[in-house]
């Protein structure tokens, strides 16, 4: 059964994570997103390893050419890394924190980007076509699929929640490491000045504590929901556009009508795909950048000052607002 025809009446059913037929772990179905996660991780590592070999300084025998990256992919990776480090992270986090967390933040950015981009490639449909060419039956139901790779992993709240939990752990690790338990609690109560200030200021401390305490969990939850919602929305739109043709066939329209609807919706789907590529990059960046902002907020006061005043017109705050 065709992938589109199977889900033609419910685009969400096409996007939602499904179990892989015949695979289970701890008495639970192995989800397609899990295999996609592992596949993306392996491909990402191999690609980045190749890029690293190209970017790394070569042997002295190469002369000055040893400093030049080899290949356009390595050059692209280098441009992205240099931009993120020099233009985004250092102005927000400062040199010290950027050096400490750059590896983690780059890994997060490229991992989410890889998952987002893989989600845009119709691997499930390709497998459907391959099954068809091989004369095999490709099953796709509400809960399970014959596909073994593909799908939009970041359109699953379980996946984005896992990523957000990692961010949460790193943010709190930074808080305890920099501020200590006492400083961390003071941070939750509004900061050192408020806690050690006038007794009347203590009236607002409980309110601030409640807000800040919930903020600890709301911030990573917002990261997870933002990424998940953007991916679901984009893929729903894309799937809806691509299913118009199948819907027209099922509705029994004439050849001319079906062809016209298919062409128009196909052009729309192509345009939306370009938008989705941009969204894929943007959401990966926002997830990584907001994590960096939250990490920098857990630094000492003077470094917080750096993060607030070191950027032009509260760049971090504007990006945060835009992301919301």
């Amino acid at each position, binding site marked *: 059964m065709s992938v589109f025809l199977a889900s033609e009446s419910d685009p*969400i*059913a096409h*996007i*939602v*994570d*499904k*179990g892989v037929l015949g695979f*289970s*772990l*701890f*008495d*639970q*179905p*192995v*989800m397609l*997103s*899990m295999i996609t*996660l*592992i596949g993306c*991780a392996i491909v*990402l*590592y191999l690609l*980045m*390893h190749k*890029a*690293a*070999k190209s*970017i*790394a*300084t070569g042997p002295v025998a190469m002369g*000055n050419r040893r*400093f030049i*990256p080899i290949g356009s992919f390595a050059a692209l*990776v*280098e441009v992205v*890394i*240099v931009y993120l480090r020099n233009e985004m992270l250092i102005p927000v986090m400062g040199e010290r924190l950027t050096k400490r967390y*750059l*590896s*983690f933040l*780059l*890994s*997060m950015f*490229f*991992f989410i980007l890889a998952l987002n981009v893989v989600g845009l490639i119709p691997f499930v449909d390709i497998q459907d076509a391959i099954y068809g060419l091989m004369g095999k039956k490709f099953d796709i139901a*509400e*809960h*399970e699929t014959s596909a073994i790779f593909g799908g939009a992993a970041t*359109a*699953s*709240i*379980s*996946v984005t*929640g*896992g*990523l957000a*939990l*990692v961010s949460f752990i790193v943010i709190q690790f930074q808080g305890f490491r920099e501020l200590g338990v006492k400083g961390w609690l003071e941070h939750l109560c509004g900061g050192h000045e408020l806690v050690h200030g006038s007794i009347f200021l203590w009236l607002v401390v409980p309110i601030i504590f409640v807000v800040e305490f919930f903020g600890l969990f709301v911030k990573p939850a917002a990261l997870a929901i933002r990424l*998940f919602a953007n991916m*679901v929305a984009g893929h729903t739109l894309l799937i809806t556009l691509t299913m118009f043709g199948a819907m027209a066939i099922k509705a029994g329209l004439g050849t001319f009508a079906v062809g016209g609807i298919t062409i128009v919706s196909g052009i729309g789907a192509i345009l939306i795909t370009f938008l989705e590529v941009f969204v894929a990059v943007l959401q990966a960046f926002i997830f990584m950048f907001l994590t960096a902002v939250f990490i920098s907020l857990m630094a000492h006061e003077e470094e917080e000052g750096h993060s607030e005043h070191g950027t032009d017109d509260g760049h971090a705050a504007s990006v945060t607002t835009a992301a919301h």
Partner: protein
Amino acid sequence: MLIASTDPLAFNLLPFVTTIVVFSVVAIALGIFVWPKILKGLDDRNAKILHEIESAEAARAVAAAKQKEFEQKLAEALEQAAQMIREAKSEAVRMGDEIRAKSEADLAERARRAGEEIENARRAAIAELESHAATLAVSIAGRILKREINPADQKRMIEESMTGMSTISGKRN
């Protein structure tokens, strides 16, 4: 076996844990084997570019100093050449003046000598002329007087004539 939910918001523990584990593993692997290489490559290139820029600036400073030194030497050479030309001209003028003065002095000396010689010749000619004239006058006078003039008279008369002629010629001069 449990079945997967069709609700996109449904939470599934297995993908959640898998995400954490897979991301942690890939982040650690990338953090150990990939990012350090890339960042070192970038830092090496930055250091190389900075070194090249500093070297270029140092070379430019040396070149500027050399150029300044060269220009200073050139200016000194030009000044020295001008000084030499001025001295040569001055020397030429001095030598010209000296040669001219020497020539003029030589000419004046020669003129003086020529004048003296002319004067001497004139005097000799006048003396000779006076002598001939006296002799002729005495001879003429003897003939007129028809008498014999002895040598002593002749000598006395010549001397008297000569004295008289010298007086006349002195008056002429």
